[in-house]
């Protein structure tokens, strides 16, 4: 921190660089130097480089422009080293803390260059754009130090070719909510020969791709140093840099200097070497694990082996682990940690200021200033960014490791103490396209105080009234297009609340009694019979020999299967730790995969960690570049051959195509893999048959599903297989039985089980007509939406869909707003993130299904009328609530269910019974 000021005594300069003196000529200029000067930038010296501190707009406005639009940073001063040669990976594993071997081509990660004592020589980002080459980006201020250190260590390695590309390669950073659309508009596509690697990187942080922009090759990374969820860094050949810089500014990016780069990273609580790494204000080394990011940047994988600093880092890690549970017995190995702190009193916490807790000196501010933010108004997903600027005083502090979130602190500012509090974060990045400020007074909503008024009778009446209103609205006025929903028939619904509801009927087959079903309670004869007949009806429907009907949801059915597979693969080993499923092939959630087949969902506790990537051992189905809704079957074969999955999970929640069950079966058989092919038919269970798919005939081992999407309800789950008693995998089916009961349910909700039997009768009776009509309606609906001028996703050659679903592209980030507008017009759909979108808050698609409205009698022509109404709402912004309500009145009688006098009579009796 230079303290030399142009005037006065006692001025303290906190910024990390000093104003360039007029006479001093710096030799280190980036290729964009003239552009910065022409844009009126205030140039400063930083790490020997002549860099823009801010442009004419100023730091505050540049910070806000990055958060609300898009900021463009010249970060060509950073060090860039390229590593090639046979031993490059071994070298990087030795000098870096993260597991470089975990990076596939097209991936990058954050890493530390540790020293022997558990401190950081530097922090860095490692990119793998090419099979045989790694690119390491280091801090400008440490470039020479890092280079010299690497040179020394390189002597111990035979074949590593390290090249400093810091001069000939420019590095631009484009950050903020508009960054994606700005870039997307510039990437050359279509003309073969100019596209190196296609388009945008996958919409996940740290993903890479290689593109061309106006003919120039650009290595493109979804990385950054601002906390923005939409973030890109562009590695460009020096001679192309000016052209690309100009193009990005033309498209609306705003140039941002180092000043705002620092406040943006502070708000995102990202560490800066010299502040959060290196030496603390007492000139003591800061431990790497003081920064909680180290969790992701340090790997102790056995596959990584030994590396510089490993022993010291391991000690810190043990202390870190205990500190998370407020066990400070090893705190001397990690005496201080870095925490985000909000200043609640007046003043600005600057680096080096002392921090106190109850009068005890507990540490120092490492970075801090006043940062601007635009206020959001409204709640949740509906909150919108305003242009009302506010400021808040925040910092990062290195404090004793027993300081926890919520602790009140005091920061000594020029001899006076001001109040501060430890906060969990300053900013949240999980709701793209915006990074959202988390101001201390708005971290969470306090629960409303519990009303103790003793007016429960009145409340009960209110509730009943509202339930009536809601039912009349949803059932009588709305057109429901949620593809995972269904209204059950009156008979099915009435049966669901008849007597077995509320009772228990736990039972299992006991081998000692020749596998007779033994019930644990009395009074269960009726439900025992219902369950037996339900299994029969479902076996007929699915064309298989075994069905388990006890799961009460599709997700539970999946979890029970995963648990059964773990049980099955450990059946020879009942003494030691039961191993998890070795490798799973599934649909990625952003490509339409269902939550229940993801590590973040039901798969989490059943799938192993890949020791190499240190992530769940899941690979995803490759999809066609021209149609991301369809599996690329040729590429899929290669993935199966490479990864040899133990479990393949077909089936999706965004589903337009039949799943290639037969092809997958042939690959697995041809490669003689011990692999379970599971088809989660949750969405399409009601379509099973000759018009859609016959999963067992095509080769599925296990089918799971929920019974209330295209099937006729009630809301439950099922598991099915075609295993016979003499199959080698029969014990797997026995495990499915056990892991359902007692593994997943004790009470399996007997009321809806009874209702489901009625639904199964209806389905088996009406499926021929119903399935044909659903599939025809979906195609007609898709075509009509297309004709109305809307952007229907999928393959025009199959009329966009082979299922009940139709997907509409309404524009990046517009999904929630348009779905809300449709709801205001009584059309109920759900917004959906598309295959190129970063998360559900950035959704640009609507997902619709025709199953429920087909059941209420809508025909192809009616779906064409509906498409017109939807077009009116989306494109013409018309209010059609009245028209939709009238439209729905034509479709109130349910089809594909039993009707007639004899059914009406008994339904009336059922009503009287409750």
């Amino acid at each position, binding site marked *: 921190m230079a303290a030399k000021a142009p005037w*006065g005594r006692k*001025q*303290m300069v906190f*910024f990390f660089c000093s104003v360039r003196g*007029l006479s001093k000529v710096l030799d280190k200029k980036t290729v964009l130097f003239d552009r910065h000067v022409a844009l009126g930038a205030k140039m400063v010296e930083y790490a020997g480089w002549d860099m823009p501190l*801010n442009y004419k707009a*100023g730091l505050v406005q540049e910070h806000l422009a990055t958060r609300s639009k898009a900021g463009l940073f010249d970060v060509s001063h950073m060090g860039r080293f390229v590593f090639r040669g046979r031993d490059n990976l071994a070298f990087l594993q030795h000098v870096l803390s993260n597991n470089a071997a975990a990076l596939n081509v097209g991936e990058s990660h954050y890493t530390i260059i540790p020293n022997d004592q558990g401190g950081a020589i530097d922090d860095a980002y490692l990119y793998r754009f090419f099979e045989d080459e790694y690119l390491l980006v280091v801090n400008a201020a440490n470039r020479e130090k890092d280079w010299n250190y690497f040179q020394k260590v390189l002597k111990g390695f035979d074949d590593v070719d390290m090249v400093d590309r810091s001069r000939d390669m420019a590095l631009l950073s484009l950050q903020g909510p508009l960054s994606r659309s700005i870039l997307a508009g510039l990437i050359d596509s279509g003309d073969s020969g100019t596209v190196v690697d296609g388009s945008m990187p996958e919409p996940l942080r740290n993903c890479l791709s290689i593109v061309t922009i106006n003919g120039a090759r650009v290595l493109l990374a979804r990385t950054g140093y601002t906390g923005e969820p939409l973030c890109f860094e562009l590695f460009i050949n020096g001679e192309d840099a000016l052209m690309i810089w100009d193009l990005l500014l033309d498209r609306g990016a705003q140039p941002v200097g180092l000043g705002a780069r620092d406040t943006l990273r502070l708000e995102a609580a990202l560490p800066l070497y010299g502040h959060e790494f290196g030496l603390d204000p007492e000139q003591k080394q800061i431990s790497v694990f003081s920064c909680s990011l180290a969790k992701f940047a340090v790997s102790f994988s056995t596959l990584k082996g030994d590396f510089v600093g490993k022993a010291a880092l391991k000690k810190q890690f043990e202390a870190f682990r205990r500190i998370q549970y407020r066990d400070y017995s090893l705190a001397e190995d990690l005496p201080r940690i870095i925490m985000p702190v909000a200043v609640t009193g007046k003043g600005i916490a600057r680096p080096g200021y002392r921090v106190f807790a109850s009068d005890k000196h507990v540490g120092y501010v490492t970075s801090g200033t*006043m940062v601007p933010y635009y206020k959001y108004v409204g709640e949740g997903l509906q909150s919108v960014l305003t242009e009302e600027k506010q400021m808040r005083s925040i910092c990062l502090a290195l404090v004793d490791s027993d300081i926890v979130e919520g602790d009140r602190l005091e920061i000594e500012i*020029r001899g006076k103490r001001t109040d501060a509090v430890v906060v969990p974060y300053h900013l949240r990045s999980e709701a793209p396209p915006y990074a959202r400020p988390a101001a201390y007074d708005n971290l969470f909503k306090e629960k409303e105080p519990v009303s103790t008024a003793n007016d429960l009778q009145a409340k009960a009446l209110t509730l009943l009234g509202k339930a009536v209103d809601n039912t009349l609205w949803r059932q009588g006025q709305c057109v429901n297009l949620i593809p995972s929903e269904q209204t059950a028939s009156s008979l099915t619904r009435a049966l669901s609340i008849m007597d077995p509801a509320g009772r228990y009927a736990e039972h299992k087959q006991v081998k000692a009694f020749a596998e007779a079903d033994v019930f644990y309670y009395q009074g269960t004869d009726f439900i025992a019979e219902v369950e037996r007949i339900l299994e029969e009806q479902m076996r007929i429907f699915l064309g298989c020999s075994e069905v388990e009907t006890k799961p009460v949801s599709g997700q539970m059915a999946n979890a029970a299967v995963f648990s059964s597979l773990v049980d099955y693969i450990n059946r020879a080993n009942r003494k030691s730790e039961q191993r998890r499923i070795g490798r799973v092939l599934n649909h990625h959630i952003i490509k339409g995969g269902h939550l229940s087949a993801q590590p973040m969902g039901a798969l989490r506790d059943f799938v192993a960690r890949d020791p190499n990537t240190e992530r769940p051992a899941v690979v995803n189905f490759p999809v066609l570049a021209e149609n991301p809704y369809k599996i690329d079957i040729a590429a899929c074969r290669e993935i199966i051959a490479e990864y040899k999955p133990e479990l393949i999970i077909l089936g999706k929640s965004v589903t337009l195509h039949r799943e290639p069950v037969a092809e997958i079966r042939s690959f697995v058989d041809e490669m003689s893999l011990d692999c379970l092919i599971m088809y989660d038919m949750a969405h399409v269970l009601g379509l099973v048959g000759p018009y859609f798919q016959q999963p067992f005939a095509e080769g599925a081992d296990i089918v799971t599903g929920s019974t209330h999407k295209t099937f006729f309800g009630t809301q439950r789950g099922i598991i099915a297989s075609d295993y016979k008693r003499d199959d080698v995998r029969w014990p797997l089916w026995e495990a499915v039985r056990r892991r359902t009961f007692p593994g997943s349910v004790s009470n399996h909700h007997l009321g809806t089980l009874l209702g489901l039997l009625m639904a199964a009768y209806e389905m088996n009776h009406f499926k021929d007509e119903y399935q044909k009509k659903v599939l025809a309606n979906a195609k007609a609906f898709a075509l009509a939406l297309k004709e109305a001028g809307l952007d229907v996703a999928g393959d025009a050659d199959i009329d966009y869909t082979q299922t009940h679903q139709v997907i509409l592209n309404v524009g990046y980030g517009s999904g929630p707003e348009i779905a809300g507008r449709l709801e205001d017009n009584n059309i109920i759909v759900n917004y959906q993130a598309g295959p190129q979108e970063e998360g559900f808050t950035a959704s640009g698609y609507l997902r619709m299904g025709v199953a429920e409205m087909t059941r209420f009698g809508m025909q192809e022509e009616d779906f064409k009328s509906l498409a017109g109404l939807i077009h009116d709402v989306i494109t013409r912004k018309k209010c059609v609530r009245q028209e939709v309500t009238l439209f729905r009145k034509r479709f109130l009688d349910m089809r594909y269910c039993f009707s007639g006098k004899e059914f009406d009579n008994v339904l009336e009796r059922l009503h009287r019974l409750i």
Partner: protein
Amino acid sequence: MIKEGLLYTKQHEWAKAEGNIVTVGITDYAQMMLGEIIFVELPAVGTEVIYDHEMTVVESTKAANDIFAPVTGKIVSVNSALESEPELINKDCYNAGWICKIEMASDASLDLLLNAEQYKQHVKGFEQQ
């Protein structure tokens, strides 16, 4: 921009005396060198201040800068608009960006301040460094 008719300190404060009340702010040169002002620590009304001693602090995005009292006396009012809009100093340092008013105990120190021409020379000295 250096405004005629005001008095200046070598630490780049300006002072405007009207009777025994002196209004104080920082100069255009100071605000330019500091960059964007993000916080002004306003002194408490009633505080006694001494000529050429620290009186309060103005912070910009990159620095905290002490403000020195141009005269000896007592703070009688402060510009509370700066609490929510510290950037007023950047926008209009000689008017809306004033910091405080001091009731002089003695006007002796006024003679020690620079006039506009002297301050211009003083600033030129820095620019040539």
